[in-house]
């Protein structure tokens, strides 16, 4: 088991290295930091542009292979992920934003799982009854609404609500605005900020878990072993609860494992809609600013999270399913 995990990690490190290197080359090929300076009118002198680009190791006049090895060396020897075009170091910028993303996404993830799985079980047991139909239609509806639309509509409603109430019940930007030192007010203020983005992110997560959990349970509900359990003398509901539900939660647990990692990477759209300075927002900025080092670093961090999720998923399923052995 332990050996298996070590082997997996080694494989993932290699995979990550290849993926990140590939991203570096693609980003270097497609991003043009020089244009940041050239588009200014009048543009700064070429030598000064080159000096700035050289300092950040993103000068397109230096062969990309040389830049790559410099960049790699910086990471491997000093854990230095390079500079943005504005000469600010990338690594601390990312570190500071992870916390914002974490604050934003954790609650939404937990709520999505709790509500989603419960509703999934509830509807599966009532397949084709009106509760199932109503909840299912609602879920399919929310499943397809684009994230941006969902976010903006919630903002619109909240603003109207604020206007009607005549006070700022909900904040639509940022995570904090309270400046005082009263912890109760601080929490209250935090919740006022958090509630809208949490709604926006919980709904799609929740309907996702709802629909998949419903399918998983429906798949196992008709299994032969549920029939065996009924033949032993369990009622239909008891047989489903004890036998089908337990088995159907295994794939859900695997999905959960994957999503744990997603908590750290934040939510690109939601952060942009609510002007929350998290990792997702930072990622969009790096792309817009031709920040090669920044974009690659975010991609690398995302890769680490994805692979951690994959590893967790493996461990979860081996833990829950006696048929699977990690060896």
């Amino acid at each position, binding site marked *: 088991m332990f050996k298996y995990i070590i082997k997996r990690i080694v494989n993932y490190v290699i995979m990550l290295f290849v*993926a990140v290197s590939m991203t570096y080359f693609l980003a270097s090929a497609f991003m043009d930091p020089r244009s940041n300076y050239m588009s200014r009118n009048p543009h700064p002198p070429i030598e000064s542009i080159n000096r700035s680009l050289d300092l950040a190791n993103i000068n397109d006049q230096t062969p990309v292979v040389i830049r790559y090895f410099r960049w790699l060396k910086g990471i491997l020897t000093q854990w230095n992920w390079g500079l943005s075009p504005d000469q600010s170091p990338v690594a601390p910028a990312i570190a500071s934003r992870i916390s914002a993303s974490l604050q934003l996404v954790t609650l939404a993830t937990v709520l999505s799982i709790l509500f989603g799985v419960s509703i999934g079980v509830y509807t599966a047991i009532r397949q084709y009854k009106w509760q199932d139909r109503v909840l299912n239609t609602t879920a399919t509806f929310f499943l397809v609404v*684009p994230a941006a639309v969902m976010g*903006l509509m919630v903002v619109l409603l909240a603003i109207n609500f604020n206007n009607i109430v005549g006070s700022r019940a909900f904040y639509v930007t940022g995570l904090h605005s309270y400046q005082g030192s009263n912890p109760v007010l601080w929490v209250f203020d935090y919740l006022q900020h958090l509630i809208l983005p949490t709604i926006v992110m919980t709904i799609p997560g929740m309907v996702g878990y709802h629909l998949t959990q419903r399918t998983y349970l429906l798949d196992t509900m008709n299994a032969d072993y549920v029939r065996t359990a009924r033949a032993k003398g369990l009622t239909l509901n008891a047989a489903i609860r004890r036998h089908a539900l337990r088995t159907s939660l295994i794939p859900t647990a695997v999905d959960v494992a994957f999503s744990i990692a997603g908590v750290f990477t934040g939510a690109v759209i939601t952060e942009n809609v609510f002007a929350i300075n998290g990792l997702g927002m930072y990622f969009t900025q790096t792309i817009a600013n031709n920040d090669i080092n920044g974009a690659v670093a975010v991609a690398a961090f995302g890769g680490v999270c994805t692979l951690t999720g994959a590893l967790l998923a493996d461990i979860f399923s081996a833990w829950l399913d006696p048929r699977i052995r990690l060896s």
Partner: protein
Amino acid sequence: MMNDNENMVSDAVAQDMELTDPQGSEPQSADAKNAQEASSNDDFHRTGRMQLYVRRFMRRPSAVVGLVVLILLILLAIFGSKFSQWSYDEPDFAALASPPSAQHWLGTTVGGSDMYAMIIRGLGRSLTIGIFSSFGTTIIAALVGTAVAFFEGWFEKVGMWLLDMLLVVPSFLLIALIVGMAAGGSDWLWLAIGLTAFGWVGYARTLRTLTLSLRDREYIRAAKFMGVPSFTIIVRHLVPNLGSVLVINTVLGVIGAVNSETSLSFLGLGIKAPDTSLGTLLNAGQSVVQTSPWVLVFPSVVLIVLTFSVQLIGDGLRDAIDPYSRSGGKAE
């Protein structure tokens, strides 16, 4: 082994009856003369596969509604611009940020562009991108996914490793990079290409898993034993047998592509002015949400109607094609 189907009771039995039709219409006697009787004995009730699918699809009101709405949206995208005097790229400087009126049915943007014209244009873009990249994604994923599963051994190992690796690279970034370097005007095409080029990976993995179960089917082995070339087996046997999955996923893939397009354009990384798309309109609407909410509301509604109608069609198709669907009638 003798497998008694009865155990699967009701649905499976009913389903088998339906599709197999083992009615005594094809006699199996020892004498070949009975073979002649068979042709004249053709009067049994038979439901063709397509006919069955259509009937089941049509039985779902939601699916029919979805189909009608989608057809209307497509017609609107094609012919909608004929009804308006305004064009998406001709701002009316006399009416900046004006609310809906007889002149501008859905109002104008801050820059004076007619919202109706913009939405028609954006809808067309979203539909084109969605359909184009959904088809492209399906084709690439089907070929790669089946090939990786079909060729066992090192090809499969390397293929899977590459697919895993591609999943690690954020496709969002790559698409944004490709669109970013596109020259003005052709960015919608590059967006569609980008969505196709990086959108197939996860799907290919799913198809590979499905193919794994097909790979050991006896008709595939039978073809191998006969010496049928590998590529022929993939194209003739594997891909068609994934058919229902492919059809459903192509339809639902449109939603994914439309959503990705919306997200990217909303973030300013997709389609940019002077061209427009529904996502770009959302971006424009975000900053004026308090002053001119119509800029936000109308494209949002169109997007929701578009994606939801496609979803209804997809669900209807799934129910119609999936042999275990329970859309059958009730016992007397």
